[in-house]
C-alpha cells in the first residue's frame, strides 16, 4: 500500500533533502532554523559516516570518529526519516521510499552520495575481499588494516582505477601512511611500495604534483604513470592496465570505480552515463528544474568529490533559497596527511590551479583539527559560517599563490 505524506503548508516551503551526508546535513541544519522552511531529511541508515576516517582505519586502525547517529546531528526542527529513497520524480515533485511512502516537496535537494562498483574492474571483487580498500566500507577498511599491519615483505601496490574518485589526495595519503606504518614496524626495507595512476605524473594537477611527487620519491615510493587498472589476476598476483602495462604484487588495493547513486530519478536523462546527476556547476540546479538541486558526490558538477565541496554547495543552495544569487567558486580544501606528522592542503578554485603548499606540521595539525570539529560543523553550521568565511577568504587560492609561487 502506498502512503502519501502531504508536506505542503501555506506559509512554509517544504524542503525535502535526500541523503544525510555532509552536504545534506549542513543544508538541513542551516534551513531548519529559518521560519520560512519546513525541512525533511531522508537517509537510508541511522548513522552519518565520516568517510575520511576509512583512511585512518586502514592505516592506523582508528575508527574513533567513524560514525554518529543522525538523530544526534540534526537540529530539533528537522524531520528525520530513516528510509531508503528509491525514486525522485522531478516532474511530479515527489520523493518515494522503499517503505512505500511518497513525500511531496516544494524544493528537493538530492545529496545521497555515490555508489562503489568493485565489479567494474575484473577481479577486484576478489581482491577487495582479501586485501580491502579505503574508499568503500568500514569492513573493507579493516581488511586493508589487516593487510598493512600483517605485511612483512614483498610488493604493495595501490592503484587508481577511477580518476574521479572521492577525496583526490587519498591514494597518496594511503601509500605515505603505509610507508609510515611499515617504518614503525621495522619492515619498510623488505617492502616495496608502488602507486599506480592513470595520469602522466603522480598527481593529476601539475602544480600540486610539484609538492607531492618529491615527497613520494623521498620516501622511496615507486610511481607508475599511465596505468589505468583494467583487470586484477589474484591467482597470478598481477594487474594489467588499459594502456597495456602489467604490475606484479604481493598485496594490492585498488581505488575502485565510482558510480552515481542507486536512485531512480525522473526524467531519466537527468543522469549521465555513470549515473551522476546533471547539475549546474555554479548553482547546483538540476537540469532546468528551479526547485531541484544536487549536492556533493552525487552531482556530476562537483569539481572534487569531497566533504568541503558538498559543504560549500549546501551553503550556496541555502543562499539561493533565501533569494541571493550565490554561486560555487569551485573552492577545494583537501587536508592531506603525508605521514611523519606532516600535512599539506590541496587548495584551488575554478580560476586557480592547486596551490603549491609545502608540507608542514601545522597543516597536519589543521587536518586533525578539521576532523575533530567535523561533527560540530554539521550540527551548528550557523556558528561555523563566519569562521569558515574568514578562513576561506584568508586562504583563497589567489592569496596563497602570492605566498607560495
Amino acid at each position: 500500500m502506498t502512503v502519501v505524506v502531504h508536506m505542503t503548508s501555506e506559509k512554509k516551503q517544504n524542503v525535502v533533502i535526500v541523503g544525510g551526508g555532509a552536504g545534506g546535513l549542513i543544508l538541513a541544519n542551516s534551513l531548519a532554523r529559518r521560519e520560512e522552511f519546513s525541512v525533511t531529511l531522508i537517509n537510508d541508515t541511522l548513522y552519518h559516516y565520516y568517510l575520511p576516517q576509512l583512511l585512518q582505519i586502514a592505516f592506523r586502525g582508528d575508527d574513533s570518529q567513524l560514525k554518529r547517529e543522525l538523530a544526534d546531528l540534526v537540529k530539533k526542527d528537522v524531520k528525520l526519516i530513516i528510509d531508503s529513497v528509491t525514486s525522485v520524480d522531478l516532474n511530479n515533485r515527489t520523493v518515494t521510499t522503499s517503505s512505500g511512502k511518497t513525500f511531496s516537496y516544494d524544493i528537493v535537494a538530492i545529496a545521497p552520495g555515490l555508489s562503489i562498483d568493485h565489479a567494474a574492474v575484473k577481479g577486484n571483487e576478489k581482491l577487495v575481499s582479501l586485501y580491502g580498500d579505503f574508499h568503500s566500507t568500514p569492513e573493507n577498511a579493516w581488511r586493508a588494516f589487516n593487510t598493512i599491519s600483517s605485511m612483512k615483505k614483498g610488493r604493495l601496490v595501490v592503484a587508481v582505477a577511477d580518476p574521479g574518485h572521492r577525496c583526490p589526495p587519498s591514494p597518496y595519503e594511503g601509500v605515505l601512511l603505509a610507508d609510515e606504518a611499515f617504518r614503525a614496524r621495522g619492515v619498510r626495507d623488505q617492502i616495496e611500495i608502488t602507486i599506480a595512476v592513470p595520469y602522466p605524473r603522480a598527481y593529476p594537477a601539475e602544480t600540486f604534483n610539484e609538492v607531492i611527487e618529491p615527497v613520494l620519491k623521498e620516501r622511496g615510493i615507486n610511481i607508475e604513470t599511465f596505468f589505468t587498472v583494467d583487470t586484477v589476476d589474484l591467482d597470478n598476483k598481477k594487474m594489467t592496465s588499459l594502456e597495456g602495462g602489467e604490475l606484479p604484487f604481493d598485496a594490492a588495493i585498488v581505488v575502485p570505480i565510482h558510480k552515481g547513486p542507486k536512485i531512480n530519478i525522473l526524467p531519466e536523462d537527468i543522469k549521465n552515463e555513470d549515473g551522476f546527476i546533471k547539475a549546474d556547476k555554479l548553482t547546483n540546479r538540476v537540469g532546468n528544474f528551479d526547485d531541484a538541486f544536487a549536492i556533493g558526490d552525487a552531482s556530476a558538477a562537483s569539481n572534487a568529490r569531497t566533504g568541503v565541496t558538498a559543504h560549500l554547495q549546501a551553503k550556496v543552495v541555502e543562499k539561493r533559497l533565501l533569494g541571493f544569487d550565490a554561486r560555487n567558486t569551485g573552492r577545494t580544501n583537501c587536508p592531506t596527511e603525508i605521514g611523519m606528522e606532516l600535512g599539506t592542503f590541496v587548495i584551488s578554485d575554478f580560476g586557480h590551479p592547486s596551490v603549491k603548499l609545502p608540507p608542514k606540521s601545522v597543516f597536519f595539525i589543521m587536518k586533525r583539527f578539521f576532523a575533530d570539529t567535523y561533527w560540530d560543523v554539521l550540527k551548528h553550521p550557523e556558528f561555523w559560517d563566519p569562521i569558515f568565511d574568514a578562513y576561506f577568504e584568508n586562504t583563497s587560492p589567489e592569496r596563497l599563490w602570492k605566498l607560495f609561487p
Partner: protein
Amino acid sequence: MVSQAERQAEALERLLDMVSMLDNMLSDEELMKAVAKLLITPETLIVIDRLPQIMQLLERMTRPETLSKLQALVEIIDSLDVGALKEATAALASAPQVNSLSDLVLLLGNKETLKGLNALLNIARSFGSLASRPQK
C-alpha cells in the same frame, strides 16, 4: 514563539556539543602529539626552566613606578628632534678614525663633531631628567 525553557535547553545542548568537540580534540592522540612537538622545543624548555625569573622580571616591569617611567620615556622619544638626531648620526658617521690622543683632540675641535656631541648631550639630559621626575 520560543519559550525560555526551550532557549535554555538549546543553550545547554550547544554547551554539551562544544564539550564533546573539545573532548574529541583532547583525546586525539595524533593531534596532541603534533601540537606538543610543535610547542616543546629546546627553546621552550629554556623558557620553562627560567619561568620563575621571568615572572619576577614581569612583576618588576609592571610595577606602577616602572610603567610611569616607561611612559615618560615614550613621551621623551616622542618629543625628540628628529632633525637634530639625523645631524648627530651623520656627524658621528663621518668622524674619521681615531688612532692617537692628538687625533682625538683634533676631532673634538671639529665643528661637525661638536654639533653631534651637543645633540647627543641634549638627549642624555632628557633621559637623565627621568630620574628626577616626580612619580605620577
